[in-house]
Each structure stands twice: as structure tokens, then as C-alpha cells.
């Protein structure tokens, strides 16, 4: 209990509260800008957080995460531009509502669903953290090594469109993490004689290169082709009154909100199940439980509740594996883990045992950010629409310069800027070749933990492989690893035979967005009849009439 109160004390410091507020506003803005994502924003701000207390930096990042998750709904509803794949599900019913002149109401529905779902998710995550902390004490080096391998396997298998490519990306990430000195013997490996690499590959150039610069490069392709401008002139005509109606509508569906919040929490607990997949699962479940499933996709507020309630709950759930086991759920949580590592805290159960107050402070900060979404969202909704008009040919050079400055500021070495460029080239090539970059980043983040625990376990077990499967926890973890591998192989076989499921639908939705296909695809969204075509097929010419352009941006790679 002392950690809980200590965490609260850390949160209620004026500095922490200020960073939560700042992060929320940044998150709101980031979620509105096509091509930007929470992971990108956190990656860009990572070097800055090294100059403030860790709790402030983490509060800033989780608030950005919460704010982005909410504000992504606005362009999805009003403009049918899902800035991340997770928001595509919201557009299924949000955009048809906007076409019917109920945009403000849809935003109101999304706001309360987001807040409530987030509070459910984070509230239960807070309860789960304490028993996990005591269970984590029983984990030794072999268990921690197996957990890192399990985390990597799940993320490699789920993120992206191909498990084989995901695993390869993760293996390359592990390999990159192996560069530099051996943590036990000090012997340097794979450093190409570069003194700057003797301490290993620094996280910040890797994060900025793989995410921020790669993302901007892909956005630049569209900006220069002229297929994307983010400046549609559309305003909310319905005003604040309709937003209140939206809040009331959500309040009238408590079961739907609770269901989507719980589903989001569960999905958040599983590493690699990104927002898009979780939202589509929640949407499918919401539709199956609705009294009017035939209206899903035509502007049913329950569809927005299912998607948005789940979306913010995923953020809460994703904090649990990250804080308790050191397994990042997504790109954003991987960047959060990088921040911990950069401050000298090894990811894993150690975070809960040695820095429990910090772990609770992070969850409380996310909880507070979710609470603040309601009043701040009401105040800022209309001005926020202006942000969607930012010109990309100004935004892209700005982000690139900030990324370069950030990569330099970490160690004040030009070498790191060059390294950022190397990772950018790797990121561009990977994305162009269909290799997801998230497993690589997670491999880089988890690699040192995996290696250190592997070497420790090997030393304790005197080189016997059987030591890795000696304890009951080891056996359970090994069985889980085996089951996961079998599941992925089975899924691959099913997919070859043309059988799909909701997880595949989520992946396909993300894939379709990356290929520049406008709007969500209801046929893919929910397997089964009556998917509701109006969600993605508004009346002909409607978009052009509203000043919208053809293609949405590619969503970020974060799951």
C-alpha cells in the first residue's frame, strides 16, 4: 500500500501535474495531425525527458498517450481520416453520423466513452499491479529470459501483416541490441571498431530513426504527390449542445461502455494486440450484443462506444505488462521502457520491486489524463479542428529538424545524428519491404534484459540448458511459448486457406490504410453479415463537397 500512496504523492507534485497537462495538450494536437502518433511524439520528446525528473518525463509521455488516443477520434469522425489504424473503427459509425449533421454528437459520444473506458481499464490495472508485483518477486533470470522471448514472439507474430517478417524484424532487433560490450565479461562484439558503439546502440537514435524520420519520409511521399493535405475546411455546425447530447447517449449505454472497457483492458494486457485489433474485436462484440446490429456502420453511436471505450482501456491495460514484466505492448510503451532504461532502471519486475512508487505514479498520471479529457476536450474540441489544417510541407521539415536536434542532444555527438540516419534508412527499407519496425525496436529494448538474464541463468545453471526449464514457472512459461508458436503456425495455415478472423481484419485494416486506401472497410471490419456499408461508403461526392482530399495518411506503425 505504501507504493500506492508514494505514487500518489509523486503525482500530486505541481511539476508532475503540469507535465500531465502539457502532455495531454500535446497528445490532443498529435492525434489530430495525420501521420503523427503517440509513439512518434514520445520518441521525439524522449531526449528532452532526460533533462527532467523521470516521473515528470513519464507523466508527460503517458499523458500524450492518453490524449492522442482520444483526439484521434475527431478527424476520424469529422473528416473520415483515421490518423491511426485504431481510429478507423471509430470512423465506421462516426463519419456517417457526421454526414447526417451529428458530428458534434458523435464527438460527445466518443469523449465520454473514451474517458469511461480509460478509467475502467486503468482502475483495474491499478488493482492488478499489486498481486503482479508480489508474483514478480519469484522470477529469476531464467524466467525473465523466457518472458522476454515470449514478449518478443507475441509482438513479432501479431504486429504487421506477416509473422515471419515480424519474427525476422525482432531477431534483427535482438542482434542490434547485442552490439557493444558483454554485460558480464566486458568483451565487445559487433561494434565495427567504433568507440561510440562500445556501450551498445543508444536507444534515442534508434527510436528517432525507426519511427519519427521513417514516418515523416512516408508522409513526405504523399505530401509531394499532392494526394494529402490536412486542410479541409469543415466546421462543427451543431455546437456544444449536440456534444452534450452525445455525452447523454453514452451514459444511456452503461453495459456497452463497461463491456468495451473490459475488453480493452484484456486486449491491453496481451502484448502486441494493438489498438486497431482490439477496437475491431470490441466493435464485433458490441455489434453482436446490440439490439440493432443492422444499424452498425450507418451511424450507430453504440459502434463509437465499442471502439472508443476499448481504445482508451487498451492504454491502461498495456501499462501492466510493461511495468510488471518489462514487456512493451506497443511502440509507445517501448519508448516508455526506453525512458526507464535511459534513467538507469532495468525493465522487468525490478521496476515494481525497486521503483513501485514510480510505477503507480505512471498509472495515476494516465488515470488523471483520462479524467482531464472530459473538461479539456469540451473546451478544445472546436479549436482542435483547426490543427487538422496544418500543412504537411511545413510539418515534415519541422519534425525532421526536431528529431535531428533530439538525437544530437542525448550525448551531444554528431555520430548519433549519423546513426539516426542509418536507422532511418533501415526503417524506410523495412516498411517498404513490408517488415514491421515495432518488433525491431522492441528487440533493441528487450535485448539487453534478455541477454543479461540469459548469461546469469547460464552461469547459475553451469551451462546446462535444462536449467532454463527447471522451475515450475519456467515450465509454464515454456508451455506458453510453445502454445503461442503453435497458434501462429495454425493462423498462418488458416490464412493460406483464405480463412480470416477479427485479428486478421484489424491487420488488414491497418494494411489498407498503409496502402493509401481511404477510410475504413466495413467488409473487413467485422466478419459476418450486415456490416453496414454506409460507414465507409458515404453518399457520392460528399467528401469532395466538404473539401476533403482523396487519401488518408498512412497510419503509424505502432500497434
Amino acid at each position: 500500500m505504501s507504493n500506492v500512496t508514494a505514487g500518489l504523492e509523486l503525482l500530486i507534485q505541481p511539476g508532475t501535474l503540469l507535465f500531465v497537462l502539457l502532455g495531454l495538450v500535446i497528445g490532443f494536437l498529435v492525434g489530430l495531425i495525420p501521420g503523427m502518433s503517440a509513439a512518434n511524439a514520445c520518441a521525439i520528446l524522449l531526449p528532452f525527458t532526460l533533462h527532467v525528473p523521470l516521473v515528470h518525463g513519464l507523466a508527460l509521455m503517458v499523458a500524450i498517450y492518453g490524449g492522442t488516443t482520444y483526439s484521434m477520434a475527431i478527424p476520424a469522425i469529422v473528416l473520415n481520416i483515421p490518423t491511426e489504424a485504431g481510429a478507423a473503427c471509430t470512423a465506421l459509425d462516426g463519419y456517417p453520423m457526421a454526414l447526417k449533421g451529428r458530428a458534434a454528437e458523435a464527438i460527445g459520444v466518443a469523449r465520454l466513452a473514451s474517458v469511461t473506458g480509460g478509467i475502467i481499464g486503468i482502475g483495474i490495472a491499478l488493482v492488478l499491479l499489486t498481486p503482479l508485483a508480489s508474483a514478480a518477486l519469484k522470477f529469476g533470470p531464467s524466467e525473465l529470459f523466457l518472458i522476454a522471448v515470449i514478449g518478443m514472439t507475441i509482438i513479432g507474430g501479431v504486429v504487421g501483416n506477416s509473422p515471419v517478417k515480424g519474427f525476422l524484424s525482432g531477431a534483427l532487433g535482438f542482434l542490434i541490441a547485442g552490439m557493444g560490450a558483454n554485460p558480464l565479461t566486458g568483451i565487445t562484439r559487433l561494434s565495427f571498431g567504433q568507440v561510440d558503439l562500445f556501450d551498445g546502440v543508444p536507444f534515442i537514435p534508434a527510436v528517432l530513426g525507426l519511427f519519427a524520420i521513417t514516418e515523416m519520409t512516408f508522409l513526405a511521399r504523399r505530401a509531394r504527390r499532392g494526394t494529402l493535405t490536412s486542410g479541409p475546411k469543415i466546421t462543427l455546425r451543431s455546437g456544444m449542445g449536440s456534444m452534450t447530447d452525445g455525452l447523454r447517449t453514452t451514459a444511456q449505454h452503461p453495459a456497452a461502455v463497461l463491456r468495451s472497457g473490459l475488453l480493452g483492458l484484456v486486449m491491453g494486457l496481451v502484448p502486441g494486440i494493438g489498438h486497431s485489433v482490439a477496437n475491431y474485436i470490441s466493435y464485433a462484440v458490441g455489434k453482436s450484443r446490440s439490439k440493432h446490429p443492422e444499424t452498425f456502420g450507418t451511424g450507430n453511436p453504440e459502434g463509437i462506444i465499442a471502439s472508443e471505450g476499448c481504445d482508451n482501456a487498451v492504454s491502461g491495460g498495456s501499462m501492466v505488462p510493461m511495468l510488471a514484466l518489462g514487456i512493451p505492448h506497443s511502440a509507445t510503451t517501448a519508448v516508455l521502457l526506453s525512458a526507464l532504461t535511459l534513467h538507469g532502471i532495468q525493465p522487468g519486475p525490478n521496476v515494481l520491486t525497486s521503483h513501485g512508487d514510480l510505477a503507480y505514479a505512471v498509472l495515476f498520471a494516465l488515470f488523471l489524463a483520462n479524467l482531464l479529457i472530459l473538461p479539456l476536450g469540451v473546451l478544445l474540441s472546436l479549436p482542435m479542428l483547426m490543427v487538422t489544417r496544418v500543412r504537411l510541407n511545413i510539418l515534415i521539415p519541422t519534425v525532421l529538424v526536431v528529431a535531428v536536434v533530439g538525437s544530437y542532444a542525448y550525448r551531444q555527438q554528431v555520430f548519433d545524428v549519423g546513426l539516426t540516419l542509418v536507422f532511418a534508412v533501415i526503417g524506410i527499407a523495412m516498411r517498404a519491404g513490408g517488415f514491421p519496425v515495432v518488433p525491431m525496436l522492441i528487440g533493441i529494448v528487450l535485448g539487453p534484459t534478455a541477454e543479461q538474464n540469459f548469461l546469469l541463468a547460464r552461469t547459475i545453471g553451469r551451462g546446462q540448458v535444462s536449467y532454463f526449464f527447471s522451475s515450475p514457472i519456467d515450465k509454464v512459461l515454456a508451455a506458453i511459448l510453445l502454445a503461442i508458436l503453435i497458434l501462429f503456425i495454425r493462423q498462418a495455415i488458416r490464412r493460406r486457406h483464405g480463412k480470416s478472423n477479427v485479428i486478421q481484419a484489424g491487420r488488414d485494416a491497418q494494411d489498407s490504410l498503409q496502402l493509401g486506401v481511404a477510410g475504413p472497410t466495413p467488409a473487413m471490419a467485422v466478419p459476418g453479415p450486415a456490416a453496414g456499408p454506409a460507414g465507409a461508403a458515404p453518399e457520392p461526392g460528399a467528401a469532395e463537397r466538404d473539401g476533403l482530399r482523396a487519401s488518408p495518411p498512412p497510419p503509424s506503425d505502432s500497434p
Partner: protein
Amino acid sequence: MTGNTGTNTHGRGQPLQSKLIQSVFPVAGLAFTVIFLFNVLNLGFNETTAEPALFIFIVLPLGVLSLILIWWPRAADPAVPDRERTAAAVTADTSRWQRLYENDWTISAGVIAGLVLLLVFMHFIGLLLGGGLFMALMGLFLGYRNPLYGIPIIVGLMALIWLVFEYLLEVPLPKGLWGI
């Protein structure tokens, strides 16, 4: 494809997921595996040869996955061949120069070349001036043509970077050969 507001223009220029680029990582992974195993066979399986005991866990899966992707590329994406996804959107009515201008790889190369140029600028005229120059050039490259708004934005951002790094965080920004 969706019956929605636009068309898929991703296919203009070259298809994004060409066979060549898809092969880069598997080939690199396989090459690394072969070199690693060769190294282990020659130098022995001990602590001083790049930690074979650990790397075997990474390198062997890397080699196997690379082999799968090289010999059986459809294993990666059996449902929809990449070329089919993009070829439909390739438009034939654009000129050669227009296609080059809109080519994905031209744009990516342009952005990376711009960043390399920024490194050169940093060396000679420092980050603040070099960053401003980079923003102007990159804006032009991406089609921004309005100096009335562009210049104040560049000056404002550089001033903000100076304020945050030099003044608030006390991180010295790189200065060029001329001490700017």
C-alpha cells in the same frame, strides 16, 4: 476498393514492396548467419568468439527465418501478392518526369539526402542556421512556395530550439567552423 472518397495512389512510381527490397533483410540475415557460423567453426565455441552460446539463440532463428523468406517468399504474405495490390493503381497518363517526381523512392532519397545535407550544414554553419536552411530547402522540395509564412515559421522554430536547448536545458547546440 472501399467505395469511399478516393483512389489508391500509392502505386504511382514504383510499387512500394518490390521483390528487391523485400529480399534485402532476409539476404542480410542469411549472410550474417553464415559468417557467424563460419566464425564459430574456425575459432571454436567459447566465450571470446562473440558469445556464441547466446547468439546461437538469435542467429539460428534469424538464419531459418531468412531462408524461409528467400526460398518461400509467399510464406510472408500468402494471401495478397504485393504487386497485385499496387499494380492496379499505376496510372499510365503521367509523364516520365512527373512519374520521377512522384516516385516514392525519389522522395525518400530526397528526404535522406536533405538530412545528410543538414549534417554538412551543421559542420560548417552550425545547427541553428543549418537547420533553418534545411527547413527552407525541404519545404521547397515538398512543394511549399509561400515565403511570407515560411520564413517566420523557420525563424520561430529555430528561436524555440535555441531557447529550449541552450537556455532552458543548457545543452550546447553544435556550432559550425565559423563559430555560429
